[in-house]
């Protein structure tokens, strides 16, 4: 939240900073008063009872009215910032990206181009994209603080979120609603690119990856089919892996995408992300080597 990269996030951070300023003043006031009375009116030996005062009606009215007025101002600012940070969505608008929360990964689809990927969301800078947030199982929550608010992914109830930034870069986020065993490793990676780069990325995603016809990668392609990996990983049960080689991370952020880590994952996913829905296939080292080559070549 300290580094907003969108106008939505900026509006929230601005209001937050103002609120923190007010909060600091109030806290200083209260702390100051408590410390003051604690020292000033400390009992000294030999003193009798102090003057017994029961109250003061005007004081009560004053310190009721003042906070109330302050809060009224904050309420107005709240309304204003709600509009800035969560602009309304004209009806009939089609989403630019559909983000579906699964236990414990994010399905990412671009309906207008047909691109399907997982966990890493590419965006063109300088454009406002409408994201549709859904869930395939339990309640998740999509949260990338630098971009703005979080939005819950609720099964049976679609939500919408504007995603936009003017600054190219990588912005990290996470699932923010406890969704089971591996909630901690349902991370989000938003990659904002200049429009040209984004287009290039989209085009690459729509092509089939170039897999060599011989060697480990070719063997891996075959294993991918024979060992039924393809069944889960193209039917939405597991993340789409068509271009997994071009991603920065694996398994929703738990590992950096390197051949070593890919091998580690395939050896036993349950040691990397215990409880995840990918079982241990007890693959042989040779099979893992081939699959790793295949997946890393799937750029």
């Amino acid at each position, binding site marked *: *939240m300290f580094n907003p990269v969108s106008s939505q996030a900026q509006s929230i951070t601005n209001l937050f900073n103002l609120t923190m300023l007010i909060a600091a003043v109030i806290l200083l006031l209260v702390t100051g008063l*408590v410390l003051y009375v604690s020292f000033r009116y400390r009992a000294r030996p030999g003193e009798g009872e102090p003057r017994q005062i029961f109250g003061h009606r005007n004081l009560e009215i004053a310190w009721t009215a003042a906070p109330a007025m302050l*809060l009224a101002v904050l*309420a107005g600012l709240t309304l204003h910032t709600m*509009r800035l940070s969560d602009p309304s969505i004209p009806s009939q608008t089609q989403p630019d990206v559909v983000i579906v929360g699964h236990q414990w990964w994010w399905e990412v689809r671009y309906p207008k181009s047909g691109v399907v990927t997982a966990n890493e969301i590419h965006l063109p800078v300088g454009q406002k994209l409408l994201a549709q947030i859904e869930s395939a199982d339990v309640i998740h929550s999509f*949260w990338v603080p630098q971009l703005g*608010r979080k939005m819950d992914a609720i099964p049976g109830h679609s939500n919408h979120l504007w995603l936009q930034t003017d600054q190219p870069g990588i912005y990290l986020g996470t699932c923010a609603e406890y969704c089971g065993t591996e909630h*901690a490793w349902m991370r989000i990676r938003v990659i904002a690119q200049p429009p040209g780069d984004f287009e290039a990325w989209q085009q690459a995603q729509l092509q089939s990856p170039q897999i060599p016809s011989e060697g480990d990668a070719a063997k891996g392609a075959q294993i991918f089919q024979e060992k039924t990996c393809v069944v889960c990983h193209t039917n939405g049960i597991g993340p789409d892996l068509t271009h997994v080689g071009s991603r920065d991370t694996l398994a929703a952020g738990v590992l950096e995408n390197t051949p070593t880590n890919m091998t580690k994952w395939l050896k036993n996913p349950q040691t990397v992300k215990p409880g995840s829905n990918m079982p241990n296939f007890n693959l042989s080292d040779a099979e893992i080597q081939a699959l790793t080559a295949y997946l890393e070549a799937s750029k």
Partner: protein
Amino acid sequence: MTYPIPLVPETSKPLPSLLEPEGLLSWVASVDHKQIGLMYLLASLAFFLVGGLEALLMRIQLGTPNNTFLSPAAYNQIFTMHGTTMIFLVVVPMLVGFATYLVPLMIGARDMAFPRLNAFSFWIFLFGGLLLYYSFIAGGAPDTGWFSYAPLSERAYSTSTGLDYWALGLLGVGVGTVAGGINLIVTILTRRIPGMNLRRVPLFVWMVLVNAFIILFALPPLNAALVMLLIDRLLNAHFFTPASGGSPLMWQHYFWAFGHPEVYIMILPAWGMISEVIPVFSRKPIFGYEFVAGSSVAIGFLSFAVYAHHMFTVGLGHPFDFAFSAASMLIAVPTGIKIFNWIATMWGGRIRFTTSMLFAASFLIMFTIGGITGVTFAIVPIDWQLTDSYYVVAHFHYVLFGGTLFAVFAGIYYWFPKMTGRLLSEKWGKWHFWLTLIGFNLTFFVQHILGIIGMARRAYTYPDLPGWGTMNMISTVGAFVMGLSVLVFIWNIIVSLRRGQPAGDNPWQAWTLEWATTSPPPVHNFDRLPPVRSRRPLWDLAHPENPDWKHGK
């Protein structure tokens, strides 16, 4: 014939036979509000130690990034049990225990209106808590968080029986709590001695009264949600399963319709304790009694109107969100004025900083911090960023620990002498206080920042991002300092029970009726009662030249 409560063991006294009036069985069969109150306090203290242990385990796991001290399955059970324990088995029963012990004494009554119902409330609470903990050895503890959102809590996603124990245990605790609420209301409304009208009862009694009404109307939504969940899980029904037309959001509405008032249930009696402690150690009456009482009544009503501020990120629409935002800001007003009233009570006083007063004075600051972050959550867009992050974990620990628990510590140091006949050691008390203050702030202040920079709550680990490891380690160190403070506290209790200075009837020269009898009180509470013509009968007795009733108080 008076039977003092056997809490001050004398040396070389043989263990009483189970069948004698003073024996262990007398406790199990007791319907005396003082014994029941003490059992509540003892049980909640025991659960506090368990919940604290759970917290330490969590903090060890979170001390470094990518840690493997606890598996995710273990961590998730522990954080669920930590939250459930602290809320249902520690804070609420502790406050109910104090109310049970003190309210009849404060109004000059001999016992609660329904002594047997009182005993029932305690035992069903204990049974519910034990049932909940039984889950650990019966297939696994619940692991879906203390508010257990659907459909994660449905059998499709949570096959272990932990959740069934959770729901059943909480139903038990819930039934006991409602019974306790009824008992307290009827006691306060029908058992006051002549002269003790509602404008003269101690503020603790006012808070308990408002609280009991909140309990009466807030627990039913929880009970409804729990039975609906159990029916879904055990009878294959469809309340919360979206696949068959059920509504996960209904769980949230019902749960939070309970859950928000619940947090007021957890703070109101604490405010009552502060309202007793601060005046006595400042040697002045509470400033603005009517406003402190009246603002609490307002909070009682408003507490039901703010619940959906826990659902701002669900997507219920701006108008709905803003309505609850406005109500949540409104409720800050009656809350805030109390802080001013307490400070004004200290102003012009002759303040004695006993351990009790140290906790009460720092409560004012700790609770203000928690209250401020609460207001930030009323601001919808800020909530959109920070809910479900460590910022909210910091917020609620500041109000529940820095707030309620600090007030409870103040109350324990204040009323322990009345309950046991001995004073707690001030020396150990000061150690307890400073370790707690330092440890608590060390643990939780950094969590505000962790939330702001993006750390989500309920995560068994986190990536090695800049600053995350360092801040988490600070928090973990703080947690261990708190653990140490608790050990000091327990030590203080043990040592003081054995060798504490005898307290006498009124060690603090306080003014409310519980101090007009022996420490501990006899079974029938009072041999004689002073006349009640004001809020401070004992002040009037000690100051016949300047009694409160001359000022119309």
